[in-house]
């Protein structure tokens, strides 16, 4: 558990970084080594060539004697570490090296001495026919410098690695702390604390963005769950009533019915009540399904005016029979994206409300217009209207106004309207009037927006 950070993404990233860094130190080291080595060799060769030039000069002025003298002077020079050889026909005249087979140019050879061998690098040259000179250095110095450079590089490498590992640990620890906090929040939410959210630091970094996305998802989920639990509560509470009524009726029928005809009437009433209960179920399920949003996948462009025209045609005779009038005013084509079947149900609900909940002689008006780049459909009537303080409650599930309790219905019509509108990204507004006006503004279809 203590080395859990080794398995974090943060640590993996810093380990990778450390690896790349170390590799670059190695490459840099090798480069420095090669360059330094070359420079040192060049220096040895240059010094050796200078020495040989001095010996040649000596020989040129006064022959063997002076050449030997120059070698002795060079060997006795301050802080001299060089090796010299002056030989004639294989016989050493001067120097601190044994005789050897003469090779000219820049040469390297090993020379055995007591207790091992040394590596020589230097320049060999015939100063005169038969007179061979070598001047060079022990490569041990070269090796020492190389070793020193290597040591420095090794230390650098170790320090770089240490910094990378320490940094990686620190980074992944803080990363781990935050992901741990997120995981803990998730677990707490799973335990049932749906109000809880993942902590956000406000730095807008990737973890914050992730946390925000998760929080948005949680909000949506909890909204859906609240919705679900509300539906279950509604069903539990509100189905009791009609089921209880059904039971009462059946009980009374058993006590009171005398003839087959009595029973027939009682059974008809019981079936009607059962149908009402089933209708309530269907309506609740449908609202839940619409709120689930899956229907949006089937959205297609449609002409809203045509839908309203169909509505007028459908309900005009119904309104007339109820002593009302139903008119439509719509101008031009208005295309929105939506589900025709659901929109038909939305407008049917609103128009039926206007027919059912108003006295005879009410004028109902359907209208379609445009405002602020939206299509505004309106169903209004000049009936008694609804007090402003009740507007909010109207869209609540199973809410029924005192005045309409005697009418058949479940109090779900406007909840369904609200759900369908929401699915279409439409905004519902209740307008006080004379009477009541329900205004629904839909976003226009994209192609319509371009035309505008």
């Amino acid at each position, binding site marked *: 558990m203590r080395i859990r950070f080794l398995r974090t993404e943060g640590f993996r990233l810093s380990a990778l970084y450390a690896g790349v860094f170390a590799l670059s130190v190695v490459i840099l080291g090798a480069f420095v080594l090669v360059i330094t080595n070359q420079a040192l060799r060049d220096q040895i060769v240059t010094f050796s060539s200078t020495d040989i030039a001095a010996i040649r000069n000596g020989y040129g002025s006064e022959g063997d004697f002076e050449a030997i003298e120059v070698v002795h002077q060079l060997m006795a020079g301050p802080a001299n570490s060089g090796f010299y050889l002056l030989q004639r026909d294989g016989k050493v005249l001067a120097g601190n090296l044994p005789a050897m087979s003469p090779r000219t140019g820049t040469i390297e050879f090993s020379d055995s001495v007591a207790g091992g061998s040394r590596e020589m690098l230097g320049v060999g040259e015939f100063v005169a026919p038969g007179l061979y000179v070598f001047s060079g250095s022990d490569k041990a110095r070269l090796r020492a410098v190389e070793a020193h450079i290597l040591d420095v590089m090794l230390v650098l490498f170790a320090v770089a690695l240490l910094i990378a590992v320490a940094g990686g640990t620190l980074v992944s620890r803080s990363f781990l702390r935050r992901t741990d906090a997120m995981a803990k929040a998730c677990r707490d939410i799973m335990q049932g604390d749906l109000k809880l959210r993942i902590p956000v630091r406000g730095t807008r970094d990737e973890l914050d963005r992730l946390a925000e996305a998760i929080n948005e998802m949680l909000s949506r989920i909890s909204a859906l769950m609240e919705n679900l639990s509300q539906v279950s509560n509604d069903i539990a509470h509100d189905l009791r009533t009609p089921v209880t009524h059904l039971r009462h009726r059946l009980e009374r029928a058993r006590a009171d019915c005398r003839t087959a005809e009595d029973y*027939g009437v009682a*059974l*008809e009433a019981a079936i009607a009540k059962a149908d009402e209960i*089933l*209708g309530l*179920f*269907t309506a609740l*399920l*449908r609202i839940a*399904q*619409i709120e689930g949003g*899956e*229907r949006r996948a*089937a959205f297609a462009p449609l002409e809203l005016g045509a839908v309203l025209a169909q509505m007028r*045609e*459908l*309900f005009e*005779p*119904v309104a007339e*029979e*109820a002593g009302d009038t139903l008119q439509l005013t719509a101008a031009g084509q208005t295309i929105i994206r939506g589900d025709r*079947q*659901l929109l*038909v*149900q939305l407008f*049917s609900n609103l128009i*039926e409300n206007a*027919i*059912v909940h108003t006295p005879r002689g009410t004028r109902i008006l359907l209208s379609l217009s445009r405002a602020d780049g939206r299509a505004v459909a309106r169903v209004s009537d000049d009936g008694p209207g609804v007090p402003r303080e009740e507007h909010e409650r109207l869209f609540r599930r199973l809410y029924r106004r005192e005045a309409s309790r005697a009418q*058949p*219905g479940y109090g779900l*019509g406007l909840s369904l309207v609200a759900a369908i509108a929401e699915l279409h990204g439409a905004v519902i507004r209740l307008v006080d009037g004379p009477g009541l006006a329900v205004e629904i503004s839909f976003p226009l279809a994209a192609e319509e927006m371009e035309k505008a």
Partner: protein
Amino acid sequence: MAPVRFLVAPVKILLVEDDHETSAHIVYALNGEGHEVAVCHDGQKGLETARAGGHAALIVDRMLPGLDGLSLVRQLRAEGNPIPVLFLTTMSGLNDRVEGLQAGGDDYLVKPFAFPELLARVHAISRRGAAQDSEPVRLRAADLEIDLIRRTVHRGGRPIELQAQEFRLLEYLMRNMGRVVTRTMLLEHVWDLHFDPRTNIVETHMSRLRGKVDRGHGGELIHTVRGAGYTLRAD
């Protein structure tokens, strides 16, 4: 309520439904009309029985053990089996109807349903299977005649002016002449409405249509079938 008499020739119907109570209920309703019903309780068995043939219609539940209803019907259609299909389901889902029709179903009925609704739909689809080949130009019932191309209506030789939706309503009744059509069938097929309206849409439009087609013409053709719906009959 007196049982509704549909007065159609008895046929053999295949029912695939896993719920025994529901299947007993449906068998009872169909037997009452004189139909013979073969019942399968799982999808695979249902598919094999349907393949064997000899049924005038198939009533199939959406959710079945073994093979679900949609796959069963898709399989039958893929094999070129033309048997008329009525889907049954408890799901009140919005997409279920479309899915059922796309899979090759002829009609769709959401459980729970009233007996007359089931019978009317079974009759409508089983008849549809028989008379699908030639699309008629004119439909006639006694002295009422409608022209489907010119969209004109004559009764006793005299023209009758109908609105578009009144014509569609009359056309649907004429196409199902002698059969009972329910309120829900009319809402779905004439107006494409798939919910239960709170106002009496069907009754109102039917009353207008009757006013134009039947009133003052002697001899009513459109009849109300109590507890079931309507029928257009020439007798």
